[in-house]
């Protein structure tokens, strides 16, 4: 069902957890569809210095969450904003078609977290 890379991220997810007093937090999904992803960011000079996630969801949901945290750590915010759900799925070597709709939301959660950071900073 899942390829090796997906299974690797599912089995050994990177950056699981929370960041206390995170600079930005983003959450997407709802329990109805079976996916809730929450991403925490730490930001310095518009660079993502730390990122963590918590996810309620299937193997694909956990793997995409893990993957997106790896992809953005150390990246500039505007670079991170360019990462799409599709890019996350591709970085994982692809996902089963049935999983593309509701599990592949990690980039959205990231974008929400960045927006949250920008909104907080603007205040």
């Amino acid at each position, binding site marked *: 069902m899942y390829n090796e890379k997906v*299974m690797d991220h*599912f*089995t050994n*997810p990177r950056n*699981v957890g929370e960041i206390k007093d995170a600079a930005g937090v983003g*959450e997407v999904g709802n*329990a*109805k*569809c*079976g*996916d*809730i*992803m*929450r991403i925490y960011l730490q930001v310095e000079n518009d660079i993502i210095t730390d990122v963590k996630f*918590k*996810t*309620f*969801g*299937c*193997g*694909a*949901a*956990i793997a995409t969450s893990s993957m997106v945290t790896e992809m953005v750590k150390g990246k500039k915010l505007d670079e991170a904003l360019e990462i799409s759900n599709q890019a996350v799925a591709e970085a994982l070597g692809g996902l*089963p078609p*049935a*999983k593309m*709709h*509701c*599990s592949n939301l990690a980039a959205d959660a990231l974008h929400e977290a960045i927006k949250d950071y920008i909104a907080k900073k603007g205040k």
Partner: protein
Amino acid sequence: MKRVYFDHSATTQVNREVAELMLEYMTEKYGNPSSVHSFGREARKAVEEARERIAALFNAKPNEIIFTSGGTEADNLALKGVALANRKKGNHIITTGIEHHAIMHTCEYLEKQGFTVTYLPVDENAMIRMEDLKNAITDKTILISIMFANNEVGTIQPIKEIGQLAREKGIYFHTDAVQAVGSHPIDVEELNIDLLSLAGHKFHASKGIGALYVRRGVKLEEIQHGGAHERNMRAGTENVPGIVGLGKAAELAKRDLDKKIAYIKGLRDKLIAGVMEKIPHVKLNGHPESRLPGNANFSFLYIEGESLLLNLDMKGIAASSGSACTSGSLDPSHVLLAMGLTHEVAHGSLRVTLGQDNTEEEVDYFLEVIPEIVERLRSMSPLYGS
């Protein structure tokens, strides 16, 4: 790695004796039962003997058995067959909201053909209420189709009361007994069952074979057209190896039923007790007593079923879930939702279904690995501890 099969409601291992008999009817006694020559007669004889064995399993007569390709076809034949043959009497069918897709989607098809279908609700244990059934009956009702035992949560319906009511009202009663046959005693006379579906692969016969019991006198129309097989009720060369294997499996099921039930129930109760003791925030789904002997269905709050399954699979344990994510659909199990579970709780469900080949060591192994898996997934969950 050790592999533990805890998914007997999905399918079962074919019994060795059954498989070897099938092999014999594939490679040696391979005649077509419609042929008049000795190869044909030997196949015909085997088919008719198997029919007797299947009938004997639930106190039917051999000529009340129609062989099908499985449970789904039996369900399709029962519903469409009765609906089409009795259209003049009425167009109303009563079923439940927790049926297998083979019933549910066939009912939806019949609705498009002009039939009206009532889907009875269930209580929190997945039981229908007799009151609801009584109230649903109209003078247009031609068929009541209520599953014997539920495939997800194992709840066994009040079949005898339903049969009695249906008989009094002169309405045909069909039961999808795919999960019950071979796991629960059934007597179609005592229970007033008019039609009953079964599938071989759920009780150690092969996939690709099933049967529909149709009480003598029930008006049925065939749905697969062609040759005059199965008394014109199901066209197509008989699946002789499948049928012979089904007969053997029925014979074994009948012989071992009481012992099997006691054994599996023992294991299952140990498993449930262990889970409840070791893990917090767990709910047992399904009826506490009136349930299949091998079925345990839990909701582990705050986590999602597929991740749980995959983690168990990595430990060699095969189980199942009512999570949407295992099926590729958007909604979790319609059964769990019908029981009133919220989406989150339904998503975290795990079905463990035991069989006669399971051992106490396997249950111990399960109880050893499950707590840490649940704990790890919960530690990753945004719903837990917040």
